[in-house]
Every structure is written in C-alpha cells, then in structure tokens.
C-alpha cells in the first residue's frame, strides 16, 4: 500500500488559466522535469522513475537519459516510459514501491504532475480498474488523428457504464473529463484540473491533498477507468503554476532544417543537460563547457570531474533577435547570465517571458528546455527564466 511523500506540479505560463499551452521550447519531457523537480524539493530518495504520457517526444530512441539528467538523478536508475492517460498514471501509483517517482505529462492542455512514494505520507490504495474499448478518438504511430465525433456516446457508454461496472463509491474527484462532468459525478466540490491526460490524476491528488479531502479518486480515459481511495496522511506539495498569459504570436519562418552533429551532441550531453561544469583536482576554477587544459610545461590534463552549477543568476547582457531566422520563432531574447557565486557565465535563451522584457541586472533561474529541434532530434539545454515582477 503506497504512501505519497510529496507532490509536485508544473504548468507552462502560456495559454488560458485552465488550458495551458507549451512554449516553443517545451515538450512533454521538459514539463515532466519541472514537475519532477518540484516533487523532489522534499528531498526523498528515488530508486525508479515511471513516466506516463501519450505525448512522448521520441517513440523510437529514448527519453530516459534527458529525463534523469534534468531531474538530477543517477543515469543507472530504471525509467519506465509508459504510454497512457489518467488511469495509467493512477495504476502506476497503486502498484508503486516506495521511492518511486511517478510523473504524468501532457501537451494539450499542457501540464505535468509528479509524486514521490515513501514509507509514510498520504495513503492511497487501489479501488477499481476497468479496461473497456470505445476508441472515439485515435492517434496512430505516424500521428494521424481520427475523431468519431460523438461525445454523448462517450459519456453514456464510456464513463457512466465503466463507473457502474467498477462498483465504486461516489468519487471525491474525477480526472480525465471536463470539470462540469466531474462536478456532476462527485460528492462535494472536486478540484478543477488543468489537464485531462496522464497528469490529470496526479493534479487531482494534489487538489485533494490541498483541500484535505479523502475518498475515491477516479481517473478515466475514454471507456477505461482506474480508481484509488485516498485516506489519511500528509504529502508535501509544491506547485509551480504561474499565472496564465497569452502566448506571444511571433513569426515562424518555415523551411530550415537546423543541422546537428550527434558526435558533438553526445560529447556535450552530460554537462549540458545536467548543468555541470568541469573542475580539475586541486583547482577552484570551473570550466563551462568542460574542457581539457594544458599546464605551463605542456602536460595535458583531461581528468576533470563534473560539478553542478548554480541555477540562479543575474543578466550581464542581453539582445533580442527580431530578424527572421529560418526554423525559429522570432522575436526571441538571448542573455549572458552571471551564475551566483561561481564566476561562471552562461549564454542562454530566455524562456517564460515575452521577448525583449528581460533587462541587464534581471534575476532569474536556469531551467531545462528544448532549445531546438535539429534534424529531428530534440536538443535540450538550459534557459533563463526571469523572476516574475511581484
């Protein structure tokens, strides 16, 4: 019987309050990293990671290395990439051993939520599971979407029929449906949820933990359903949910396939996605990016170790690119950030703010984002997110 020690949530700042959209620099993995890091603020041990989504950026190749790097977790950890919606995430919670980090992440509406299990905390136990087929919306391996177009069929023969088959008590929260539907089906006031996919059931858990409500939590996807019962206990909750703003329109210039060197990508990967600098033994100096060094006598030093860099800093200089750049949305801002207390500067793009709004001297944090998609490869790195004006 799993216990939830901590819950972390993340919503992109763009879009409508209850329907966020990811920035151009975000994908399901960067959202998952934000939520996962929020859950890990509580600093519990992690032994395995389960990532649930129907929006995985890579179906062939793996998303695991970037996920672990972004979360600052050991690359030896097992990562279970599960294709699924709200019920799949709840299933992962029901069957989780302690010290499992479970993350649900969605792109439309966009958001991610994560929980870390432990030996104590908020207690959940499996209450129901029903798998039934009513494929009113399908998406195949090449991304083709077909919509059957009958919401009443979905409601009657999907949700209502599955709920009846599951022999559940009246739920306290329902994830995976519109809020109005959830209100009809629940006792009390179920928490409004910003997503409907894999992350929705964890947002629901966060909502129940916030309100201190207990009872059945039901997650649905079409005609499939899973339920847990939330009983007593306390989970630490960290929400990274900035107010919503309209996404900047900008101008996207088609027609560029930005080239990549996968050899260069692989060499840079650890330092770039873990935000680490090189340091040689008996030296205080940090090299970012890491590099070999030559001593005065010409001797080569190549055995640097990677040291985590601070994730906060101050803008030293800035420029905003307005000219059209093939393959990128303009305008965008670039900054050189002086990282706190280490004498290291980083050249990064700005995220989470309209272009041209970050000034010299601005404070902010560095966050993992998808810097570009280059020849089909998502290229991850860090970007500067300015502190919001109070």
């Amino acid at each position: 019987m799993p216990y939830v020690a901590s819950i972390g949530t993340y919503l992109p700042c763009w879009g409508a309050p209850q329907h966020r959209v990811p920035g151009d620099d975000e994908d399901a993995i960067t959202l998952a990293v934000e939520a996962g890091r929020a859950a890990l603020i509580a600093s519990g041990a992690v032994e395995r990671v389960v990532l649930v989504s129907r929006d995985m950026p890579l179906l062939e190749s793996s998303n695991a290395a970037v996920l672990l790097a972004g979360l600052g977790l050991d690359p030896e950890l097992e990562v279970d990439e599960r294709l699924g919606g709200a019920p799949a995430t709840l299933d992962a919670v029901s069957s989780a051993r302690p010290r499992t980090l479970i993350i649900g992440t969605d792109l439309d509406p966009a958001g991610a939520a994560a929980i870390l299990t432990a030996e104590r905390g908020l207690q959940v136990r499996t209450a129901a599971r029903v798998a039934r087929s009513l494929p009113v919306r399908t998406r195949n391996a090449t991304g083709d979407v077909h919509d059957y177009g009958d919401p009443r069929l979905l409601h009657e023969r999907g949700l209502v029929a599955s709920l009846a088959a599951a022999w559940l008590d009246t739920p306290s929260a329902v994830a995976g449906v519109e809020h109005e539907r959830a209100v009809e089906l629940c006792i009390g006031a179920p928490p409004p949820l910003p997503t409907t996919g894999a992350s929705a059931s964890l947002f629901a858990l966060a909502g129940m933990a916030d309100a201190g409500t207990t009872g059945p939590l039901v997650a649905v996807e079409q005609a499939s359903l899973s339920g847990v019962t939330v009983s007593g206990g306390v989970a630490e909750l960290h929400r990274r949910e900035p107010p919503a703003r309209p996404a900047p329109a900008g101008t996207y210039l088609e027609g560029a396939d930005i080239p990549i060197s996968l050899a260069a990508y692989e060499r840079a990967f650890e330092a770039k996605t873990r935000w680490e600098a090189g340091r040689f033994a008996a030296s205080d100096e940090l090299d970012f990016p890491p590099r070999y060094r030559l001593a005065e006598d010409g001797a080569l030093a190549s055995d640097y170790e990677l040291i985590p860099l601070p994730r906060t800093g101050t803008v030293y200089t800035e420029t905003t690119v307005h000219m059209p750049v093939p393959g990128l949305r303009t305008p965008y801002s670039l900054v050189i950030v002086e990282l706190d207390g280490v004498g290291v500067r980083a050249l990064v793009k700005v995220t989470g703010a309209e272009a041209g709004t970050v000034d010299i001297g601005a404070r902010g944090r560095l966050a993992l984002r998808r810097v570009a998609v280059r020849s089909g490869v998502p290229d991850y790195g860090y970007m500067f997110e300015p502190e919001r004006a109070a």
Partner: protein
Amino acid sequence: MRKVAIVGAGMTAFGEHFALGIKDLLPMAFADCAKSVDKGLAKSDIQGAWFGAMGTADGFPSGILADSLGLPDLPVTRVENSCATGNDAVRNALFGVASGAFDVALVMGADKLRDTTSKDMLWKWEAMARDMAWDYPLGLVSPAGFALHVRRYMHESPTTREHLAMVAVKNHRHGVNNPKARLRFEITLEQALEAPTIVTPFGLYDCAPQSDGAAALVIAAEDVVERFTDRPVWIRGVGLGLDSVMHQHKPDMTTFPATTRAAKQAFAMAGMTPADVDVSEVHDFFTGIELISYEDLGFAERFGGYKLVEAEVTSVGGALPVNPSGGLKAKGHPPGATGVAQCVELFAQLRGEAVNQVDGARVGLAHNIGGPTAVAAVTLLEGSAHGAR
C-alpha cells in the same frame, strides 16, 4: 626584415554580384590592381600569393586563384581568419617578402556570399562561428553576437542609440562618392533611428550588407619598389590578436581584447602611436563596433568613443577621419575581401588619390574584428611624401 611597400591596389565594386562568380571577380580585381601600378605590372612579376577567403565558393580557393589569374606556376596560400582574413593575408604576404623569400607578392581577398540562398546563409555561416553543441542551436545570429557587446557597452557608457545612428549617417555619407560601394545614398539620423529593428539595439542601418567582392594588392620589397612606382605606400606595422571564441568567456564585453592585442603589435612594429594616424578604415560591421574600436585602437578614452562622432572628429574633414570609403556599412562586407579593400582605400588616401581625400594623410590604419569578436587584425600604412604627388 626588409621594408615592404604596396605598389598597386584595386578591387571590384562590392555588391550582390549574382551575374559574376568568384572566378570572374578575381581577375576583375587583379586587373583593377595592375592598372594602378604606375610603371606597369606583368603577371610574371608575381612570385607568390596569399589569398584571403572565408568561404569556399566553387571549390578549392588557392587553386581557383591560380587558375583564374592564369598563373599555374604561382604558389598560393589560402588564409582564413574570419573577418580578419583580409588583413591577415596582408600580414602573411608581408612576412613572405620581408623575409627575403620573395621580392614581389600578390595579396587577394574575395568572398561570394550571395551564391548561397539567403534562406540557408544564416545557418551555414553560423556553423563557421559557433560551438556546434552549445551555441549553434541558440540562434545567436551574427548581429546578435555583436549586439551582446554593444548592449553592455551602452549600459556602462553614456553612448546612446543616437550615437550609433551618427556612425551610420557618417559612413553612408562617405559611401556616396565611392563607386565601389554598395549603398551609395545618404540617410538621416531619423531614418536610422526609425528603421526596423534587426536585433536590439541594432536597427537596419546599424548593419552592413552582406556582399560579394574581391580586392587585390601587389607588394614589393624595398630593393625592387622602384621598378613599379616612385610613390609606394609602406606597410609599417601589422598585428593579429585573438580572444576567447565564446561570448560567455569574455570577462569585459565593453572592449575587444583581440583589437587591443593586434593594435599593440602593429604600433610597436611601426614605432608609432595612435596619435600618428591620419586616416583609418575601422571594422563597422555594426555601428556600435566602430565606437568601441575607437577606444580599443587608442583614438578615444574608455567610454569616450561617442564624443568623436558627436564632434564629427571621425568624418572626412574632421581631425581623424574614419571609414572615408563608407566602411563596411556602405561598401559591403565580403569577409575575405574586406580587409584587403580597406588597404585599397588607404593606398589611394596615402597617395592623395582618394575620392574622399583626407588632406595631407600620411599614416593610415586598417582594422577588422570577427570570429566572432575573437580575432582582430590591424595594418599600419605610410605614404611616401605626405600623400601628395
């Protein structure tokens, strides 16, 4: 080392030469140069060549130079040093002649930017300038790299966008008379300030146009100069300075150490100081770069560059004219050719033959910075007799 002089100088017009390939531009520039040699030049006089080319239009650059000039016996060395390519080609040729290895050498520079579609140019040229994993995907387009410097420079100094615009107005005005310049029209301060933003703080008129072109110099050792001219222009000093390639590694972005290093070498070699310079061609790829370079070259005190444009000191007619040719701003910027073309302008200035003649000009300075902002070259030239015939 022997003294070495420029005895001939010429160039093609800079522009979008869609109808002319690099194999056309090279002989055109050579012919313009040969024409300027007072006592005549035979192709067979040339014993070695240094060819500055940043790109590789139509293939192997050295071979293309020898082929297109019809000089199959000529040893050609290709020089590539980002925007400092042209003046670095001058520097290497100088060493070849000063050492005694050759008596007469050819310096050429050319690039053919407009053979690449404008859609692909940006990412193609970025690949020459950025770390492939760390900086390339950021979209740090060339003007943005320079803008990071100028933005910080404007933050720390009294320089305003008006001062940047004054540089554009000045260099456009200078370019009007230059038949080799690409943009031969005047602009007003208001036009410069109201132009569309390219990257902050640069508007359209703060940027030089990417262009095609070629330029050529013939240099000769002091022992043989008289065979070609009685009015040689001596190469008195050369310098080449480098700096960190990545912008995030430059501790003070309000100055270009590459320039100060190159200038220090060139002035030391010439036994001169910045006060000796009468006219200069300074790398104004972006207007703010010219202002910062005033300081790095020793023409202005730190953060005082703006005073020179405010007082029109650097206009033709002022005490220290900068970019009488129109600069990169009005002339255009085919990187390999740019530095050589600066020396073409100074050759004319120091012989009293320039279209925007600086009265009594005796010492001229050419300067480039690029790479991005990681390499600079400075060349100091001196006329024979106060620039007059």
